Structure formats: structure tokens, C-alpha cells
């Protein structure tokens, strides 16, 4: 039978590094069912019969965040054979808090006292034996980064896995222990009454603590669990203690855990008194300095952008797009198909549908890999947390997080890595919001559209391109403010309580592995949804209704375009060509330029479509063209980006909502631009009324108080009052 070792520990305790070391290449990554929390498991190196289960990095087992819930449910319900609790020895007091909770689960616990090398280097002393005795479990000093002590930790864990865990020790004060004992005996009696098997001492203690804490999951139905009489008596016991301590029961337990730990640390840890600043403090002094913080941040971001979008990643992407999927693969496959003598439609499907479609998506892979490498490095070394620290103030005003900046910046190159960069944002609401808004910023593939419209309709004008970026930023901020006031995003206010880990040099294997994991996840997506979508669009644009191959202008897509086009009449461009071009933009935004070329009867056109500028200028008024541009900049992004949205949202519902919102918002913005422009030239109609209504709704959403978050609304008022007072 396979044994299961579960790894549990705080974020930044070196858990991932240890997991990678223990499992080598046997690990696989997935997701815990129903949540966006990553699930990783693998086999212990050299042991086919031992599975190592990585749990999310957590500070406690309280059921508030998805990570905590996942870890808690796994430990309580699936019950691994043994827990290896990774404890950051340099930050032992906070790390042992989780340990005290793990020790109550009734599963054998082995502590891997990690980063022991740094403790030794600092000249601090930890009495390993005494620590083990105080906590009641084996303690193995390790250094995951240097790879020392890991085997011993695994061996110790395996040798503990068969044995019963030590019986629980009273770590709380006399008052609380007394209350727990009383609750415990009431619970036991109740079980006896109901004819259930008695709990073991450990199980009883765990249940008693949960009942005392009024843990929602445990006490959802106190009357059936406890019986009405016992429930009332227990409530009395808890109330009495709460009055005495002037605190709620949950906090009493938390307090007492920390009191116990403080005692243990006093006995087992000798800190050398230091007056010198650590290297990490020195770095931090510069990096989050009042004056230097923002310039340094700008420099780091420029470097990330420069490496992944402009230079290394950009060159490789150009090569993959233009050479690999532009010449090499199509020529090779084309030659092969010719020699096989396959049917023309099949050749077209493979070359124009599959290879062109998937190639357009995979082309972004090199950029993404370089970007993921940079991000993994920034995350690992501790700078990412500082970015959030520096920028939180700005972004929280717009319903985003300090970490939203990176996705948006990266999104100016390509929305796909931009969306994927959002996964470093912990809060679900902030992450969803960032995923939805990142593609509002014009990406590299939208630049040809901007060049087309600017060149054809606004010759010599300098303001079109800057206005596109301005429009994108405004769309992000307006969306942030508006959606934060809707039910879906209101939720509980998520606290921004974030650890600022000490800076350290990340290990290369860990950073590379993170990069590859994220890259592979994207490739898998490209292989499924994106492939199918590309084939469908190709089919619709290459065949007519009698299913014969046809020019795009005679295709099914053109017919559908003609039928749908009136929807865009109020935006000023109800022309079927513009509709068809917009749809083909879903494969890749730059396709819009090429599609217009085909529809106006040109074969190959320049990147900015200069050949057909006269035709376009005749078909569009400048106002309509700008509305067309606005719609295409803001509406649903290409399939690759939609695929990325799907991946980060982990939910079809949220993906549809995101795409629907983007299209709806794009429509409204284009409507307002066109109709207000027409109004300025003296034209008033039904469209004008709708546009004005839309403006009113947006303004209303921007300025009403948050209807779904009472506490937050008060806070906003308070801030407003404070701001007014300051003025």
C-alpha cells in the first residue's frame, strides 16, 4: 500500500523547494477540485510506494481562505499517513503557530526545521532536542536550498507513519484547559447516548477545541451534535471564559497558542544579540526607500519588459511566428501533403486552419517563458511582495491590488502572459478583476489596427495611438470602480495582510520549474480550446453554404456578418466587412487588417493595410472608424487570451462573464463615442438617447456608495471626510 507524506508549512518556508527535492521529476501539477489552488503531488525519490502530497502554503488551519480550506479538508478528511511540517527556523515563532494546530489533528507530525544554515550563520542556537520534547514530535534540521537533511526528514517521517501520534498535551492555560475538558466530557456523554464509538483522546481534544472556538464547520448544527441541553451548557462555559478574558473564544485560543509558543521559543532558542543590519534589511532600505522606491520599481519593470517583450522573448516570438509557423512548418507540412496527394480542403484545413491558428498562439510561448522566468525570479527573491507594498495605495482605490500592475504592464506586450501573470494575486476578487481588465490595454497585436485606422482616416494625426492607451487605462479604472460595487465582487472585504519575506537569492531549479509548469499549462490550453476555435473560424470563413470552398467574401462567415452587421449600426460601422474583420480578430487581433485586405480584394497587404486606405476612408467616416477602433481595442480578446482567462478563472461561468462584460463594455464605449460625436455635429436620434442613458448609468456606478459592503462604505465615507478635513 502506498504511504502518503503531506507537506505543510507557511508560505516562504521553503516548502516548494523541499517538495521539488523530494520528488524530483515525478511530480504532477493540477488543481484542487473547485478552487484555483494548485495541487501538486509526486513520488518520493527512490521509493515507488511513497507519495508526497504538497499542501498550499498556509499560516493556519482556520477556514477562511481557499488555501486553508483545501489544506484543512485534506488533512481532516483524507488523513495522510504522516505530516512533514516545514518550519522556517529564522522565523520560528510565527511558523510554530501552524504546528500547534497540526499537532492536534491526530496525525504523526515531523518538523523539518528549515533554513537551519542561515540560523547557524547568524550565530543563533536552537536546541533541537528540547524543541522536539516541548512540541511532542521529531525535529529534523534541514536546508532545502542546500539539499541537506531532506532524506533524514523523509526517513524520520516514514518511521513515524505507522506509530500512533503522541497523546495531546495541554498547551493552554488552566482556565481554558478546564473548559476544554468539560466540553470534552459533554461530547463523550452525547456520543455514548447516541450509541456511537467513543473518540480517541486526540479526536476528542480536536473536537472540543473546535466547539470552543465556535468553528462554523463543526458547530453548524449544535443541537443534533450536542443535544439541546449540552449545547446550552457549553455555551455557558464559553461565555464565562469570554467574559473573564474580555475576548471571543476563537481569539482566546489564538492568544494562548502564541503564549505557549513564546514560552517554547524562550526555552529552546538563543538569539545572538545583533546590532548590525542583516543583508536583507540593507537591501530593503534602498528598495522601498521613500524616494528611490518608485524609480527602482520602474527600472525593474522596464528590465522585465525589455527582456521578455522587446528583446530575447520578442526575437524568439518573431522567429516562431514568421519563420517557424510562417515558413518552416507550413512548407514542410505542405510538401508532405502534396506528396501524399491529399484533398485540397484537407490541405487548407491543416495549413490555414490548424497550423495558422495554433501557430498564432504558440508564437507567444517564447515571450511567455522569458516573462515567467523573470516573474518567478521576482517572486522567489521577495521583490514581488515589495511591489505590492509600494503600489497597493494606488491600486486599491480602483478595486485592484498592488500586484495588478505587473499583468497590465505585461499586457501591453501580449495579453496572454499578462493574464497569466495575475496568478500571483492572492485575493480572488482582485485576481478576477485583473484578469478581466488586463486586455483592455492595447497589446502588440492591436498596434496594426491602430496604425490602419490612424493611417486611413486620420493621416498625419499624432493623437490616435496615445488615445488608445489612454482609453485602455480609463477602461481598467472605470471597470475596477464599477464592478467593485456589484454583488459578484463585493464579497467580504479581503484583508491585505501580507508577509514581506526576507530577500534571498532564488535557486535556479525552482525558478526554472515554475517557468516550465506555467508554460506547459498554457500549451495544453492551446492544444484544446484554441485549436477547436481556430478550426471553426477557419471553416466559417473558407466555405459557403453549399459547403464548397469559397473566398472569404462569399463564405458562411460573410453571410453571418451581413446578418449581424445591423447590431453595429448605432456604432457607425454596420458594414458586413467590418463585422467579419472583427470576428476574425478573435483568432489574432492583427488578422483584422488582413481580413479587410481580402474583403477589399487585395491578396497580401502591408502590416498597416496601406494598400486599401482609400477604400476604407470611403467606407468609414472618421468618427465611425474611431468607434470601430475603440470597440476592437476593448472587446473580447483573441482566443489565446480567452484561453488564458479560462485558465486563470478556473470556471466557465466567470470566463463567459469576463468575455461578455468586455464585449458589452466595448459596445457601450463605442456607442457613446459615435453618438456623442454625431450629437456634436447636430444629429439627434434614438441612439443618442441610449448613449446618454449609458453615460448616466456609468456615472451613477462610479459615484454611488458601495451598496453591498456596509463596513467598507463607512470606511470610504471616513476617508472622504478625512480628505476633506485635510484640504
Amino acid at each position, binding site marked *: 500500500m502506498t504511504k502518503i507524506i503531506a507537506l505543510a508549512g507557511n508560505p516562504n518556508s521553503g516548502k516548494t523547494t523541499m517538495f521539488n527535492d523530494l520528488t524530483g521529476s515525478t511530480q504532477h501539477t493540477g488543481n484542487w477540485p473547485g478552487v484555483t489552488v494548485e495541487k501538486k503531488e509526486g513520488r518520493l525519490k527512490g521509493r515507488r510506494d511513497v507519495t508526497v502530497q504538497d499542501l498550499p502554503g498556509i*499560516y*493556519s488551519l*482556520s477556514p*477562511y*481562505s481557499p488555501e486553508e480550506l483545501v489544506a484543512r479538508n485534506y488533512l481532516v478528511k483524507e488523513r495522510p499517513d504522516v505530516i512533514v511540517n516545514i518550519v522556517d527556523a*529564522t*522565523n*520560528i*515563532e*510565527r511558523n510554530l*503557530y501552524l504546528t500547534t494546530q497540526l499537532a492536534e489533528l491526530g496525525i504523526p507530525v515531523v518538523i523539518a526545521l528549515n533554513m537551519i544554515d542561515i540560523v547557524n550563520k547568524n550565530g543563533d542556537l536552537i536546541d533541537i532536542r528540547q524543541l522536539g520534547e516541548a512540541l511532542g514530535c521529531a525535529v529534523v534540521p534541514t536546508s532545502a536550498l542546500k539539499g541537506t537533511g531532506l532524506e533524514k526528514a523523509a526517513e524520520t517521517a516514514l518511521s513515524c507513519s505507522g506509530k500512533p501520534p503522541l497523546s495531546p498535551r495541554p498547551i493552554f492555560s488552566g482556565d481554558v484547559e478546564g473548559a476544554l475538558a468539560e466540553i470534552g466530557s459533554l461530547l463523550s456523554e452525547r456520543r455514548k447516548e447516541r450509541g456511537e464509538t467513543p473518540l480517541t483522546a486526540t479526536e476528542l481534544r480536536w473536537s472540543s477545541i473546535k466547539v470552543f472556538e465556535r468553528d462554523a464547520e463543526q458547530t453548524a448544527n449544535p443541537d443534533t451534535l450536542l443535544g439541546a441541553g449540552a449545547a446550552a451548557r457549553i455555551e455557558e462555559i464559553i461565555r464565562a471564559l469570554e467574559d473573564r478574558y*474580555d*475576548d471571543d473564544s*476563537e*481569539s482566546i485560543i*489564538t*492568544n494562548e497558542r*502564541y*503564549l505557549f509558543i*513564546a514560552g517554547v521559543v524562550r526555552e529552546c532558542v538563543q538569539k545572538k544579540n545583533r546590532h548590525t543590519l542583516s543583508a536583507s534589511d540593507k537591501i530593503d532600505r534602498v528598495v*522601498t*526607500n*521613500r*524616494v528611490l*522606491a*518608485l524609480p527602482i520599481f520602474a527600472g525593474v519593470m522596464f528590465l522585465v519588459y525589455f527582456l521578455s517583450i522587446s528583446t530575447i522573448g520578442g526575437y524568439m516570438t518573431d522567429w516562431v511566428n514568421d519563420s517557424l509557423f510562417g515558413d518552416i512548418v507550413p512548407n514542410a507540412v505542405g510538401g508532405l501533403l502534396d506528396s501524399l496527394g491529399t484533398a485540397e480542403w484537407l490541405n487548407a484545413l491543416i495549413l490555414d486552419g490548424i497550423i495558422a491558428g495554433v501557430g498564432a498562439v504558440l508564437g507567444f510561448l517564447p515571450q511567455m517563458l522569458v516573462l515567467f522566468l523573470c516573474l518567478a525570479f521576482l517572486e522567489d527573491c521577495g521583490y514581488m*511582495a515589495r511591489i*505590492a*507594498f*509600494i*503600489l*497597493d*495605495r*494606488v491600486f*486599491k482605490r480602483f478595486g485592484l491590488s498592488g500586484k495588478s500592475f505587473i499583468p497590465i504592464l505585461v499586457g501591453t506586450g501580449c495579453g496572454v502572459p499578462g493574464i497569466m501573470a495575475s496568478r500571483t494575486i492572492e485575493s480572488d476578487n482582485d485576481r478576477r478583476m485583473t484578469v478581466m481588465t488586463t486586455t483592455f490595454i492595447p497589446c502588440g497585436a492591436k498596434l496594426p489596427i491602430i496604425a490602419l485606422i490612424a493611417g486611413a482616416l486620420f493621416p498625419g494625426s499624432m493623437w490616435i495611438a496615445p488615445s488608445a492607451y489612454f482609453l485602455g487605462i480609463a477602461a481598467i479604472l472605470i471597470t475596477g470602480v464599477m464592478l467593485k460595487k456589484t454583488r459578484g465582487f463585493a464579497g*467580504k*472585504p*479581503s*484583508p*491585505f*495582510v*501580507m*508577509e*514581506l*519575506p*526576507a530577500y534571498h537569492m532564488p535557486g535556479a531549479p525552482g525558478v526554472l520549474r515554475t517557468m516550465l509548469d506555467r508554460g506547459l499549462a498554457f500549451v495544453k490550453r492551446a492544444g484544446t480550446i484554441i485549436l477547436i476555435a481556430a478550426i471553426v473560424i477557419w471553416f466559417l470563413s473558407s466555405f459557403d453554404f453549399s459547403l464548397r470552398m469559397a473566398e472569404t467574401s462569399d463564405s458562411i462567415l460573410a453571410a453571418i456578418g451581413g446578418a449581424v452587421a445591423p447590431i453595429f449600426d448605432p456604432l457607425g460601422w454596420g458594414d458586413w466587412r467590418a463585422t467579419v474583420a472583427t470576428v476574425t480578430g478573435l483568432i489574432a487581433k492583427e488578422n483584422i487588417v488582413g481580413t479587410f485586405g481580402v474583403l477589399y480584394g487585395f491578396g497580401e497587404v502591408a502590416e498597416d493595410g496601406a494598400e486599401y486606405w482609400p477604400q476604407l476612408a470611403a467606407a468609414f467616416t472618421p468618427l465611425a472608424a474611431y468607434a470601430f477602433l475603440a470597440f476592437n481595442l476593448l472587446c473580447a480578446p483573441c482566443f489565446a487570451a480567452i484561453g488564458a482567462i479560462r485558465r486563470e478563472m478556473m470556471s466557465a461561468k466567470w470566463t463567459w462573464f469576463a468575455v461578455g462584460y468586455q464585449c458589452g463594455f466595448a459596445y457601450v464605449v463605442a456607442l457613446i463615442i459615435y453618438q456623442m460625436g454625431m450629437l456634436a455635429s447636430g444629429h439627434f436620434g434614438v441612439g443618442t438617447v441610449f448613449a446618454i442613458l449609458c453615460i448616466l448609468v456609468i456615472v451613477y456606478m462610479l459615484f454611488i456608495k458601495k451598496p453591498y459592503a456596509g463596513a467598507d462604505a463607512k*470606511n470610504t465615507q471616513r476617508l472622504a471626510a478625512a480628505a476633506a478635513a485635510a484640504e
Partner: protein
Amino acid sequence: MNTLENAVSGDRVVVTKIHGEGAVRRRIMDMGVTKGAEIFIHKIAPLGDPLEIHVRGSAISLRKEDAKLIEVAQ
């Protein structure tokens, strides 16, 4: 009432009471900010919010709106 929100960089304070409820309060306490804990206000972010505090040997970033839930004494 003196709260952590009003503390300035370089202050050393002791937590006397934690207000608020649910996830926010829970998260603050899980991170080691409990009654009696000693807090060192390391710095305030360049734009004036959030705070960086040191508690029980770890560095934590805390928004001022959450810091005002924490009552402290010098």
C-alpha cells in the same frame, strides 16, 4: 484610544485589543498580532499606506484601514 493606524515609523508598541470580526481579524491574529504582542513599526510605504510592521520575528504589511482595528499602548 490609541490604534496602530496612528503609530509612526520607528515606534515600538504593545497590542492591547483587536477589534473587527471575521476573516480580517482572524488573519491579523493568525499572523501573530495578538494581545500582548510587541510590534515594531518598521516603515510606512512611500505613498503613505500600507505599514510594514515587525511582529514575532516576521515582517508584515498591513493597510491603515486594518491597522485601525488594532489598539496599542506605547
